[in-house]
């Protein structure tokens, strides 16, 4: 079985009929995947390599147990782990930098964006001890260039924790500097001590977390703080009679403008002239979450479904920004009329149309992209339209969470704990299954579940967001009726993980305990991207255990031990691994039990 989602299953067979290969097929061709790579025992960081370390007994007894430079297996594994975290952090840092730049443009009146949410602005200004938008934009951008003190966007972290981080020497100075140090440590003959490398990964985790806060706080100010709303998910939401635009990627800066353009009466009229009944933008992955939580647009599908958008034959344009975008989109779409449009200078794909996004000309560029989609409608072939019927209604987009009520429910033992499920899909495990099974298992056991990223789609499509109340334990049901939230709470995109972190901080404050004594666990059961490894280190720094599925991000036992045990006594966080969804629920419950 490849997926538990009926629509995806149908699209896989349509791909097969059309002789188009998908991630599932390409994975088959990769098997068996290189065991040295899987075990972190491969290093090509310098030109003396490629080096591999033999995990088995080499005959006649002289297998390579060190690289040419003398790197041992755990040194290699720690370097590889730091590599993942450095790259993952750079993604969130770039996103945060971009939105900060836009914010500066707003302060200077140079970009066609404005402050939409005054209340949120006031809240953030207060938190950062700022007076106005221009001060806030300076504070945000300063986090990328300061040379003393620590990040402004760590103001929400309680003093005790800041002091602990300082003691561990993991309090970051500025975002760019720590990423550069991460890259430097990976240089020829630099970082070797596994524990020390992991310690820097922890520092980068904090940088990653601060970046998430910058993005979500500033995005709320610019585009509005999400309110719970009803929506629909899966391919069945595609309207055959519309000009359909699919947004894939992350930041709402571009996609908000595309959404606005599709609501522009002139553009709508143009679409009608071209024979469409309307025009809609559908989001996939984080972009879809961002659009949904603010406008209620349909959430089309998650990471592994992205290739199938073009295959429906009813999508005029797929607009991508950066991150989690499969280059395969172009090849898959080449057989259909769908245009793939890249917009980020760092994320071009050969064969795609590149329209570079420029904040100052955001409106014109968005209109240009939407017009390309409308003009492409005439190339659509009726006979090639294949839209699966599946669509599910759900409610999501929560941002205001009743922290005090949750805190007292934890203190009373009414709920066993709070759990965040987050992260990608991975064809190495059944698509969506772990996300859904683990969510079900947790609410049955009186845990309150929150979720972000591609988890959102798995939850929405499977119906657990609506059926959660029936599936939950009695305690949770009673609590949720009283608190006004469902047992399974959809927060939004990946950067909205920061909302969960805020909640944990508030709960800890209300209970007057450090986070390591609060029953909270996070879990990325179907992870693929290095971004998850980076953010998991933020959880470890905060004092939250994180459970990974699929495979452990570190291959060598010694490095796994460091991640699982070395920070338990200090921050209280750790990285755990469990492959099977059923057992993952037990691992999470065990960890909740051991805390507070």
């Amino acid at each position: 079985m490849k997926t538990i989602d009926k629509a995806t299953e149908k699209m896989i067979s349509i791909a097969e009929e059309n002789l188009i290969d998908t991630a599932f097929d390409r994975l088959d061709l990769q098997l068996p995947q290189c065991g040295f790579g899987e075990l972190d025992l491969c290093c090509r960081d310098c030109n003396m390599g490629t080096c591999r370390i033999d995990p088995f007994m080499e005959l006649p007894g002289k297998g390579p147990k060190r690289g040419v430079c003398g790197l041992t297996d755990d040194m290699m594994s720690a370097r590889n782990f730091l590599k993942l975290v450095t790259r993952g952090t750079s993604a969130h840092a770039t996103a945060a930098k971009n939105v900060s730049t836009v914010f500066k443009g707003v302060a200077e009146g140079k970009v066609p964006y404005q402050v939409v949410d005054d209340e949120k602005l006031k809240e953030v200004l207060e938190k950062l001890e700022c007076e106005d938008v221009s001060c806030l934009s300076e504070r945000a951008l300063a986090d990328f260039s300061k040379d003393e003190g620590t990040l402004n966007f760590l103001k929400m972290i309680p003093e005790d924790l800041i002091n602990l981080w300082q003691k561990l020497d993991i309090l970051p100075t500025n975002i760019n500097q720590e990423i550069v140090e991460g890259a430097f440590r990976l240089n020829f003959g630099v970082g070797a001590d596994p524990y020390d490398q992991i310690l820097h990964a922890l520092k980068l985790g904090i940088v990653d977390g601060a970046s998430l806060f910058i993005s979500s706080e500033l995005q709320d100010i610019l585009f509005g703080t999400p309110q719970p709303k009803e929506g629909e998910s899966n391919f069945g939401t595609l309207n055959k009679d519309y000009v359909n635009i699919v947004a894939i990627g992350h930041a709402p800066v571009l996609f908000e403008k595309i959404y606005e353009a599709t609501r522009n009466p002139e553009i709508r009229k143009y679409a009608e002239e071209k024979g469409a009944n309307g025009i809609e933008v559908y989001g996939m992955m984080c972009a879809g979450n961002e659009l949904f939580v603010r406008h209620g647009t349909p959430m089309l599908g998650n990471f592994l479904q992205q290739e199938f958008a073009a295959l429906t034959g009813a999508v005029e344009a797929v607009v991508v920004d950066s991150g989690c975008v499969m280059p395969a989109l172009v090849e898959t779409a080449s057989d259909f009329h769908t245009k793939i449009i890249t917009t980020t200078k760092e994320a071009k794909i050969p064969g795609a149309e590149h329209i570079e996004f420029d904040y100052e000309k955001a409106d014109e560029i968005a209109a240009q992209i939407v017009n390309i989609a409308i003009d492409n409608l005439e190339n659509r072939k009726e006979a090639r339209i294949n839209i699966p019927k599946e669509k599910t209604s759900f409610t999501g987009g929560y941002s205001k969470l009743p922290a005090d009520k949750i805190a007292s429910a934890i203190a009373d033992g009414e709920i066993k704990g709070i759990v965040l499920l987050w992260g990608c899909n991975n064809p190495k495990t059944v698509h969506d299954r772990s996300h859904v099974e683990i969510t079900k298992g947790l609410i049955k056991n009186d845990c309150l579940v929150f979720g972000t990223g591609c988890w959102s789609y798995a939850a929405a499509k499977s119906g657990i967001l609506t059926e959660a109340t029936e599936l939950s334990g009695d305690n949770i049901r009673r609590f949720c009726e009283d608190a006004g939230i469902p047992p399974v709470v959809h927060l939004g995109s990946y950067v909205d993980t920061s909302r969960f972190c805020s909640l944990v901080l508030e709960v800890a404050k209300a209970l007057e305990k450090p986070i390591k004594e609060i029953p909270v666990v996070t879990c990325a059961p179907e992870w693929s991207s290095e971004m998850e490894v980076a953010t998991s280190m933020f959880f470890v720094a905060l004092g939250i255990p994180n459970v990974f599925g699929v495979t452990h991000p570190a291959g060598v036992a010694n490095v796994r031990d460091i991640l699982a045990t070395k920070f338990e006594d200090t921050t209280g966080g750790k990285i755990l691994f469990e492959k099977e969804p059923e057992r993952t629920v037990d691992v999470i419950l065990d960890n909740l039990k051991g805390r507070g």
Partner: protein
Amino acid sequence: MEKIMYVDIEKCVACYTCKMQCALQWSDKDNVFQASREVPQLQSRIRVKKVGNYSIPMTCRHCEVNPCIEACPTEAIYKRDDGVVVINPAICIGCQSCIKACPIGAIYFDVKKNAAVKCELKCSNAFEERDFCCVESCPTGALIYADFGKVAKERV
């Protein structure tokens, strides 16, 4: 028609996938993570040797006529009914005669056990059901197990 194992040395990139897969066959674990931690450590029965500019995977061909069996003074090496050549480690005295006798260098000496070890086709069902795991896992198709006639024709 008789099938033979053939190595297309132009195609071998020394990725050691065959070695990894071979070692895994000797474990009851289904994943490399657990298998790599087994004690005693697992052993691969195929080796990739660098000769000049070429990398050559070397493994037992389970020959028709077996110099290794003839060379063994204790009859520790024998051919099973299904044609697979195996070593009985209880009888092997570690004299290494078989290693010297093997024309393709497919038998290795395990210093710790003081015994010879070789491919015993853990992965395949008597040449019939499926390819050898080294052949099956080879990402470039450098290892070939095919009809003698077909291979001979392609080599010309």
